[in-house]
């Protein structure tokens, strides 16, 4: 999860240099591994995808500028295996403030995940490595910068047994039931404890089950995970998505509950088809709205949620240009007992997607 991933960047207690070097080594290692892949199919060349963007955020009067690259590598190996990885490279700039001219800057480089998928059937896919924890939906489905409607994730995005959003170990996922009227997907994962700078993870396990009704375009799911080190704690989640057919409207929501806090968010976005379809100048406009609340259940702040009860409303206006370019802009007002403040965000994202290297057309 992006917000969780960036949090350590602001806390310079760990060794950035070694982490950055390890990240780049890991990324180049994957790239090197991809170069050894010999695909038997003309359409199965390894790919590099991802997003590159430039964002600004003014939070309570403090402005931060951050260019970001999130490359994703994917390489099929044979008929049943896919190796994939995503990384994040961010540089943060902010004015020094006061009478001190110039900018302060810091950076974050890290692997978001690095996993190998073995597809046995639609019912069973075995995932091994460092994977995104499928707790609720934001972390593993909406967090890439080329997908999310807002620059920053919801306040409860960090709510899981692992504050980094990733686990290290194995996961079993797939489709449990498939009918014309409904389908049920599941995932179960186990993560080992690791203090490695690049592959840090907490010991825990959990799972998610979701029901999808294709006629109604409605998805509902439940998540659960449990921390298995230190004080064992449980985390519960629920999500509901509704995307009415042929409307361009989407409604997404999540609820999360931990031992010390809980919260929810609801997000709606809309693109009209009334003026020449989604690819018309008007159809590319995408108003977005999100409301969220968090509540502390006690004074122990160990879960990444705000230390006091918080409410926030985000009003966004995105524009989807041709050629995978997207502009995100939003205004948010956040309310809490420690003070209310505004959050202004603007940014531009380009999604790239191409073969990992040149090849002959077949």
């Amino acid at each position, binding site marked *: 999860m992006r917000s969780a991933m960036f949090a350590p960047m602001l806390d310079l207690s760990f060794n*950035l*240099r070694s982490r*950055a*070097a390890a990240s*780049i080594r890991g*990324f180049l290692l994957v790239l090197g591994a991809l170069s050894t892949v010999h695909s038997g199919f*003309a*359409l*199965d*060349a*390894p*790919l*590099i995808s991802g997003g590159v963007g430039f964002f600004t955020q003014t939070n309570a009067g403090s402005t931060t500028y951050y260019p970001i*690259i999130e*490359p994703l590598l*994917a*390489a*099929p190996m044979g008929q049943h295996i*896919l190796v*994939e990885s995503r990384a994040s*490279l961010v*540089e943060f700039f902010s004015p020094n403030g006061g009478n001190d001219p110039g900018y302060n*800057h*810091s*950076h974050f*480089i890290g692997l978001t995940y690095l996993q190998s*998928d073995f*597809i046995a*059937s*639609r*019912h069973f*896919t075995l*995932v091994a490595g460092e994977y995104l924890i499928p707790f609720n939906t934001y972390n593993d*489905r*909406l967090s890439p910068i*080329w*997908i999310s409607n807002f620059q920053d994730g919801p306040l409860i995005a960090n709510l899981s047994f692992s504050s980094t959003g990733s686990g290290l170990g194995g996961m079993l*996922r*797939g*489709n449990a039931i*498939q009918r014309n009227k409904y389908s049920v*997907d599941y995932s179960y994962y186990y993560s080992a404890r690791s203090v490695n700078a690049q592959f840090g993870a907490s010991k825990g396990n959990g799972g998610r089950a979701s029901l*999808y009704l*294709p006629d109604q375009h409605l998805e509902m799911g439940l998540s659960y995970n449990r921390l298995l080190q230190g004080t064992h704690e449980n985390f519960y989640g629920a999500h509901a*998505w509704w*995307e009415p057919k042929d409307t361009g409207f989407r409604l997404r929501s999540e609820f999360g509950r931990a031992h010390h806090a809980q919260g929810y968010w609801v997000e709606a976005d809309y693109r009209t088809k009334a003026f020449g379809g989604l690819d018309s100048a008007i159809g590319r406009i995408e108003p977005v709205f999100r409301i969220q609340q968090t509540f502390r259940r006690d004074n122990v702040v160990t879960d990444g949620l705000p230390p006091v009860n918080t409410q926030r409303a985000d009003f966004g206006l995105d524009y*989807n240009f*041709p*050629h*995978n370019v997207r502009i995100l802009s939003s205004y948010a007002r956040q309310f809490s007992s420690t003070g209310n403040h505004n959050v202004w965000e603007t940014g531009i994202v380009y*999604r*790239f*997607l*191409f*073969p*990992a*290297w*040149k*090849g002959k*057309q077949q």
Partner: protein
Amino acid sequence: MNSKNLRLMALVVALVSALAVSAQQSIAPQAKPSKDPAGKQSTQKQDEGERVFQQHCSRCHTAPDGFSPRIAGTIVRHMRVRASLSQHEEEELLHFFNP
């Protein structure tokens, strides 16, 4: 940030940019979900592939605006993992991308 880290970051950015430029130049035909297949059977496969895309892929994201046919299979494989697609659905989706 010290100069070593700056160099490392610049190296990675340059690598990705070079790959992007190189690959964009090599992309000849752009694969994009087509809505103009030749025959009836092909139309049915297109419809089925579009259904798979609408029900599974577009729940989270829109279709990328053109990509090389060489990676269509990899994209579909990636979606097979993410959305727990069957092999049949994988084939229909692949046909949707490459009619």
